[in-house]
């Protein structure tokens, strides 16, 4: 009998800060044991830009702020059996979602871009043009949580989630069952 194949895991950061990917490293020494049971497919950790095979687990950091995020997220849904939203940005939109409402404006996206590229006293932009190169992904009207775009199977809360909660979730999923979190381990910050 051959050894059971390793579980294939893919990860991506959409509208996130890579903090959740850094939090993966907080799994710490247990990573060594975990990697005996897991191999990475598409992920910024190995710089694979496309899926090479169907994966067991897809881990999504960040919500959707532009059309590329949506396409990537849909690609993950097609190629992964279980999809995990990792961290508050993937779960609720998080900090990028501040542009949805906190701008106190009837046209928050425009106001956000004007503040960032034109109006702020610290901006040096002699042309006063908001970046509009066709190569730039089109921004969405607002930032969406992952669950508003595709079906999400599990959400790991935190900003960033602790190494412990990520590890416990992965171990349970690899064992084929997930019983939820101990409420003491749930944090939104």
């Amino acid at each position, binding site marked *: 009998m051959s050894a059971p194949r390793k579980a294939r895991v893919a990860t991506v950061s959409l509208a996130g800060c890579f903090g959740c990917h850094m939090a993966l490293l907080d799994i710490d020494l247990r990573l060594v044991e975990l990697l005996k049971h897991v191999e990475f497919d598409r992920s910024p950790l190995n710089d694979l830009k496309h899926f090479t095979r169907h994966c067991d687990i897809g881990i999504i950091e960040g919500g959707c702020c532009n059309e590329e995020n949506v396409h990537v997220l849909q690609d993950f849904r097609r190629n992964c059996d279980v999809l995990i*939203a990792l961290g*508050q940005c993937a*779960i*609720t*939109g*998080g*900090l990028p*979602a*501040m542009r*949805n*409402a*906190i701008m*106190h*404006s*009837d046209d928050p996206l425009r106001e956000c871009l004007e503040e960032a590229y034109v109006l702020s006293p610290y901006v040096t932009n002699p042309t006063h043009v908001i970046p509009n190169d066709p190569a730039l992904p089109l921004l969405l009207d*607002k930032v969406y*949580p992952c*669950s508003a775009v595709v*079906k*999400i199977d599990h*959400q790991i*809360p935190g*900003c960033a989630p602790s190494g412990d909660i990520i590890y416990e979730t992965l171990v349970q999923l690899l064992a084929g069952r997930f019983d*939820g*979190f101990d*409420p*003491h381990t*749930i*944090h*939104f*910050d």
Partner: protein
Amino acid sequence: MTDAAFTLTIDGTVVAAKPGQTIMEAADAAGIYIPRLCDHQGLRHQGGCRVCTVKAAGRSVAACTQPAAPGLAVENETPHLHALRRDLVEMLFHEGNHLCPICEASGNCELQAMAYRLGMIEPSKFPYLEPTRPVDASHPDIALDTNRCISCGRCIRASEDVDGKGVFGYVGRGIHRRVAVDGADLAHTDAALSDHAVSADVCPVGCIIRKREGFRVPIGERDFDHHLIGETIAEKRR
């Protein structure tokens, strides 16, 4: 009506109560925690948030306002009520703009702590309303970030009943109902840092902000970072 003590049951546990007590008061005294947000020790009961909904003799009632009665059978920790409360708390998150990672109340916030306790981690079935709400930073010592207000009315009752000022009050109806200040802005009221209404405990979320105090206690060392909301009440039972 006699003044004699009587008993009721909460999830099958026999609990002593006195005439005039609410179900929640009897439960608190017995060390049984019933989740609540709009109710706060020392303030009159309101029965607004409905997070304390229990089944009393099979009917849904707010435990903070419903009088205890002899022989009453109360259900508290049932899967049905747990799910109902979680939905109520989740709708509060969706009704305002609650961005825990940027909120200075994170870790001390009762709304957030209730979401932890009730396990609010499933993909949401509700849309985010993302209302446009103002921040009032006019007062030299106090700021109001109404994005985070859950309209629990604790500041209203504290200001009226304890401070005798009436700085805060409800305006509007239905979904438009909100907490407002009695003046053009907070600076044009007689609100003061010494008011009970603006003390750290009264606002359950991060709406009433005491300026220059925000991060004195770092994230990770705050009230609900290491224990669940309600555990101090449940400890009385041991």
